[in-house]
């Protein structure tokens, strides 16, 4: 994409003076700034969404005062954080204290460089994309330990130490469960991973239920791997039930305790950037990334109708079971299904791969992360390690072996060749 922008710039005579290198540099800067705006906007939107989601789960309204439905609340909060006094504790390690938040933010931010947002829209289409994303996002732990240590606060130190143990442990199941998907196509390039998930096929290739060819439906082992990944990734981004590094009721705010103002905002920014990376990665590796779930116009129409029928059943179920009328899922799906049948162009748009689908998939995963957070209690440190080393790790390893055997049995790989 950077090359495309650079060559597009060079087509203009006025920009010729930049030369090849200059144009590339400008393109890199442009893409970087766009991504940074995306990361910042992402945090602002997600904080608002998280507040609203938590409020609705807790029979509250959430922010309502600033802007319509409280939509400007996080903007106001961000402004407040910007003008807040920047306090550095007297006995803190001043250099590390300043650098720590940036390390976290940058490592969360640069992971976006390899994320494909649409068939053509990928900041850097690299052959080792998956490996790159995993490795840069694991630098977060260094930043956390730096900030926790530099705060010169016992609570922060506990948070940092817990975080170091946790992230390092959970990286292994994360890597192994992603590797299971890589084993199917044999590429680490995220675009190629997505391209391999096009079209519609049978569930696990042999159960005659038509499903999109996403890796989660590719074989039973990948189905499990997707959940292993989601659980491990929740732990890796420090969200409940694995939020022990910042455990609010235990460590006050963990490694962030001593930070205030804009430095604290950086933690927030990177937390949501990390959540977005995890959600997008789940969508890319297991849910087909920017691929549409519908193969063509007819597929879109039938798919939307199936969704509408499911919504009708759900509405009746809720009505009977909880005596509550939840009309929104029904209304939205029925309207979309009707639109898809009436306007072929709309159905075609639904069937096209693109930003829409990766946004929907990523959004769903982020919503699930929030759902976890507002439902579950928190695990204890030792239980967390138990889950990682004794449950997720063996499961991920068995999965990886299972995928290999499955591929061999179904003849997808040729062991001789």
């Amino acid at each position, binding site marked *: 994409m950077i090359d495309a922008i650079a060559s597009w710039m060079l087509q203009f005579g006025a920009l010729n003076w930049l030369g090849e290198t200059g144009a590339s540099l400008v393109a890199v800067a442009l893409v970087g700034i766009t991504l940074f705006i995306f990361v910042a906007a992402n945090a602002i939107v997600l904080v608002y969404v998280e507040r609203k989601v938590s409020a609705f789960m807790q029979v509250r309204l959430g922010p309502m005062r600033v802007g319509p439905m409280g939509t400007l609340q996080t903007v106001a909060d961000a402004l407040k954080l910007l003008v807040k006094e920047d306090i550095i504790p007297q006995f803190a390690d001043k250099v590390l204290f300043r650098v720590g938040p940036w390390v976290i933010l940058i490592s969360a931010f640069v992971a976006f460089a390899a994320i494909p947002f649409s068939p053509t829209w990928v900041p850097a289409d690299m052959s080792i994309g998956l490996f790159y994303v995993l490795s840069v996002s694991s630098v977060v732990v260094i930043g956390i330990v730096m900030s926790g240590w530099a705060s010169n606060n*016992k609570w922060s130190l506990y948070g940092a130490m817990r975080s170091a143990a946790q992230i390092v442990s959970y990286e292994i199941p994360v890597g192994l469960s992603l590797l299971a998907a890589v084993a199917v196509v044999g590429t680490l390039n995220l675009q190629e991973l997505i391209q391999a998930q096009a079209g519609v096929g049978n569930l696990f290739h042999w159960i005659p239920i038509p499903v999109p060819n996403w890796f989660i439906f590719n074989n039973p082992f990948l189905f499990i791997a997707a959940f292993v990944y989601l659980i491990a990734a929740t732990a890796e981004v420090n969200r409940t039930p694995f939020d022990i590094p910042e455990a609010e*009721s235990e460590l006050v705010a963990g490694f962030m305790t001593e930070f205030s103002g804009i430095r604290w905002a950086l933690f927030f920014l990177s937390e949501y950037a990390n959540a977005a990376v995890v959600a997008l990665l789940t969508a890319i590796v297991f849910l087909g990334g920017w691929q549409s779930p519908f193969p063509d116009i007819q597929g879109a129409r039938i798919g939307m109708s199936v969704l509408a029928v499911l919504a009708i059943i759900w509405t009746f179920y809720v009505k009977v079971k909880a005596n509550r009328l939840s009309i929104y899922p029904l209304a939205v799906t029925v309207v979309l299904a009707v639109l898809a049948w009436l306007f072929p162009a709309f159905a075609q748009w639904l069937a096209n791969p693109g930003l829409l689908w990766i946004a929907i998939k990523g959004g769903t995963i982020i919503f699930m992360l929030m759902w976890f957070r507002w439902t579950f*209690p*928190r695990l204890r440190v030792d239980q967390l390690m138990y889950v990682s080393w004794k449950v997720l790790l063996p499961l991920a390893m068995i999965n990886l072996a299972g995928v290999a055997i499955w591929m061999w049995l179904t003849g997808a790989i040729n062991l001789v060749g």
Partner: protein
Amino acid sequence: MTRLNAEEMVLNMGPQHPSTHGVLRLKLKTDGEIVSHIEPVIGYLHRCFEKHGENIEYQMVTPFTDRCDYLASMNNAHAYAMAVEKLMGIELPERVEYLRIIFAELQRIASHLVAVGTFGLDVGAITPFIYCFRERETILDLFEMASGARLLYNYIWIGGLAHDIPPGFVEKAYEFLDYFDDRVREYNRILTGNKIFIERAADVGVMPPEVAINYGVTGPNLRASGVDHDLRRVQPYSIYDRFDFKTIVGQGEMGTVGDCWDRYYVRVLEMEESAKIVRQALDQLPAEGDVQAAVPKKIRPPKGEIYFRSENPRGELGYYIISDGSNVPFRVKMRSPAFCNLSVINEIGAGWMISDVIAILGSLDIVLGEIDR
């Protein structure tokens, strides 16, 4: 060879800490995550309740009792009023007795709701806390109807009540009970049966019955350890002998008898029992009666002393009152249940992790206003 510096680290938990339930400070000696010794440091909320008691008239002490255990103001005032009444030999109208029971048990539900909710909060579940507070809000609305206040009521007077209940109160109370019946099921679904919650609470901080008795632990904490001791049953005061309710005793369903889970679940079930008592009291409530009929014009108990104990949501609340025959008590001593309950923390909490200490402290359900007085 240089030796590793492996001494224990002293960690000050509180007085400014989200999970110490007020201004309590715990000095934790920690070896990594393991806590080897816990020393509670109290007194940050000391307001000279007992000294005040020696200098003001009997009826003026009632508002101070409200402020001791601010989550169970009704129960505190109830116990104090009963103590003075017994000292003076006042016979109460039936209606007053029933109304007092209704308020005391509603307050017990409200207090247990806070205990259950904050225990969930201590182990990291935020949503159940809000659900509990939603129900508590309804109870507070009822209290507001009756007394005009939502936290510190000064509603139970020596010899009666401040006012009679307003019209519509009984219907509202029934409405709340009907609504509340289903709520315990909701808590069980979101918190009690949650796998992570059980992992966090079961078998953690086990308090054997001998330890509980030796430390003077009372109330739900004692019953969770398997000791069937409820003052409403073993030494019925007021009119508790007229009601049909069970004493909830810890069964150790998820682990050992007397673990955090038991202490939590005993409270959940006690709320149901209290709701039963309120329903019976509402059914039997005499329609007529002046709630101030027995309020003495001058409160001047005869020379003597009394120790009166009652079952507070947190345990055995005792008042030791010495009268010298004047209208000012010579001494008002309060036996605070939460104070004794807190004293056991080192015995049951040492050796566990920091997160467990938080859970254990939460399961003891202390109120610092009452500990420091």
